[in-house]
């Protein structure tokens, strides 16, 4: 390594990974239902897609976490987006493709993708 640019490139590559271990809980929480019902309905690829894309895009205020069964098993896989000061948004019947849409529209631009939310069913 001979230049500051090279150092910066490594730093940016690693920042997402190390920043992942941030203790703050003031950002957006994306919660994926990962009980037996969720996993059976395909929640795992949804969870990994969300987690990968959030890190790829460097959305350091967003945390993708798992939770257990919330009781709406027939709507699984369920993803909830919880933002401080805003009403919780619940997305149902998620797939990896829909998850990518939610990241691009909801998490990046702040537009709720209402066609996938629970109240539309």
């Amino acid at each position: 390594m001979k230049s500051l640019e090279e150092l910066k490139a490594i730093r940016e590559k690693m920042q997402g990974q190390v920043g992942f271990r941030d203790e703050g809980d003031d950002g957006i929480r994306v919660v994926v239902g990962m009980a037996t019902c969720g996993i059976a309905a395909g929640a795992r690829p949804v969870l990994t897609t969300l987690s990968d894309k959030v890190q790829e895009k460097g959305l350091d205020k967003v945390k993708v976490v798992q939770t257990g069964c919330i009781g709406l098993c027939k709507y699984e896989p369920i993803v909830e987006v919880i933002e401080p000061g805003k009403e919780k948004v619940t997305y149902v019947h998620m797939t990896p493709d829909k998850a990518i849409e939610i990241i691009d529209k909801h998490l990046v631009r702040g537009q709720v993708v209402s066609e996938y939310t629970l109240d539309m069913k």
Partner: protein
Amino acid sequence: MFRSHVLVCGGTGCTSSGSAQIIESLEKEIKKHCLDKEVCVVKTGCHGLCALGPIVIVYPEGAFYSMVSVDDVPEIVAEHLVKGRIVTRLLYQETVKEDGFTPIVDTDFYRKQHRVALRNCGVINPENIEEYIGTRGYEALGKVLKEMTPDDVIQLILDSGLRGRGGAGFPTGLKWKFASGNRGNVQKYVCCNADEGDPGAFMDRSVLEGDPHVVLEAMTIAGYAIGASQGYIYVRAEYPIAVERLNIAIGQAREYGLLGKNIFDSGFDFDIELRLGAGAFVCGEETALMTSIEGNRGEPRPRPPFPAVKGLFESPTILNNVETWANIPQIILNGPEWFASMGTEKSKGTKVFALGGKINNTGLVEIPMGTTLRTVIEEIGGGIPNGKKFKAAQTGGPSGGCIPAEHFDVEIDYDNLIAIGSMMGSGGLIVMDEDNCMVDIAKFFLEFTVDESCGKCTPCRIGTKRMWEILDKITKGKGTLEDLDKLEELAYYIKDNALCGLGQTAPNPVLSTLRYFRDEYVAHVVDKKCPAGVCKDLLSFKIDPEKCKGCTKCAKNCPVGAISGEKKEAHEIDTSKCIKCGVCYDNCKFDAIYKV
């Protein structure tokens, strides 16, 4: 990319309670559940809460699991990592809330801390240089080599007010300035003192184990500032994990071109080598340390000449402690004003303390200078176990002194501690309660110095031994009041005449206990009593016949058969046979045995 990071502490404390096996088991279980592409296991440095080790933290949730055993691993993987259900029973008790858990930074132990030197410990994988770079590592070095002159660097360190964290508190910038003349024309050296020898202090070990690159980066910066091309880290061979990680770090830094020739294409060359110490306490003294690096027997030499003029191999040398080095890159990146905004008027920044002794949260804490002893012990340290009363805190190890309860609200900094007869030292802080005998404590520390005295100068070699003998006499109930005067006279004589810092400070534990706890010395001498019930020659064990139920447990456990009595009747101790081992006292269920 991983959706979850499982951090396992790989510091010495957690390693000795089995964290390596936990890592192995985690990796196996994660693979079994086919999560190895989703979840990574990271071995980190010390988190500070050593009393609760082994520690496992799962991100992104930030669930802080304490006292984890290998048997708990399948549950953590199956519940938390597969199904997202926090294993509440393993959470650090302080973080548990009714509806989940609070982040670890909001607990009493962490809330008042401010981590500068320890910022990466427990956060990054110390064996991966890229994780260090990810937390702005080597950015300070880049800035220094590309944008600053060597004199700028020295001025910046001077402006920050940083003082040496090894004990004496000499201004770091000044040390560098003294060694900065004649750059480029003479051979110079940069050394790191990692010969941490104070009983109870382990912050340097934690930095080396948890964030080794910070030391390499800082030493390289100093090399540029004074015009040196070679650095040495003198580290104890008793710190095998630190040595291993330093070796890995040096190898990676060379591979990335951050050590070696022409760093950042600036024309500046710098390299670092390790030297292992064989465990002599005196080798933590700067001149003895350099003598040892030179390959000679580790003995101090008189100063002046100071190392900045004539140090290692008779060349100008700067020598700083590990914790001092750990502050340097942060000062360069955040500016001297940032650093000077923390702490007190004459002691800037933060200080790491190793909490030990009679305290609930044994471990490492980093606090801004000027925090009171009360805050450190009662809030961060979680107070004294078993509802006992605070008696004194010992700082500075064998060179320091005891701080009694009357100074509980003193703001900790270099000058305040000296004023009350103790010293900062390297930051060991041993808490003592009412069950500790102060004469015995003084004797313990003196025994350490007698053992570790290198023998080069008479005051230290013979003087400390004579002091120890007087203390031993007192603890055996054979002391006189004249002995106390002799002890004091000898102490001041040694302070004035010993060759090096070890000898000059060796009498401090005695002087400070004489100053604050003279009544305990007098009780030993005049009343032939040890008020705390520690000195065996001055106490005997008795059984209270009212409380004794005649369970026979004491009689069965007594190793010398000194206890007799019928079943279900009060027992008795034959004091002529009793060796005062205390087994009966510790084992009595009815508190029937007492010390007099």
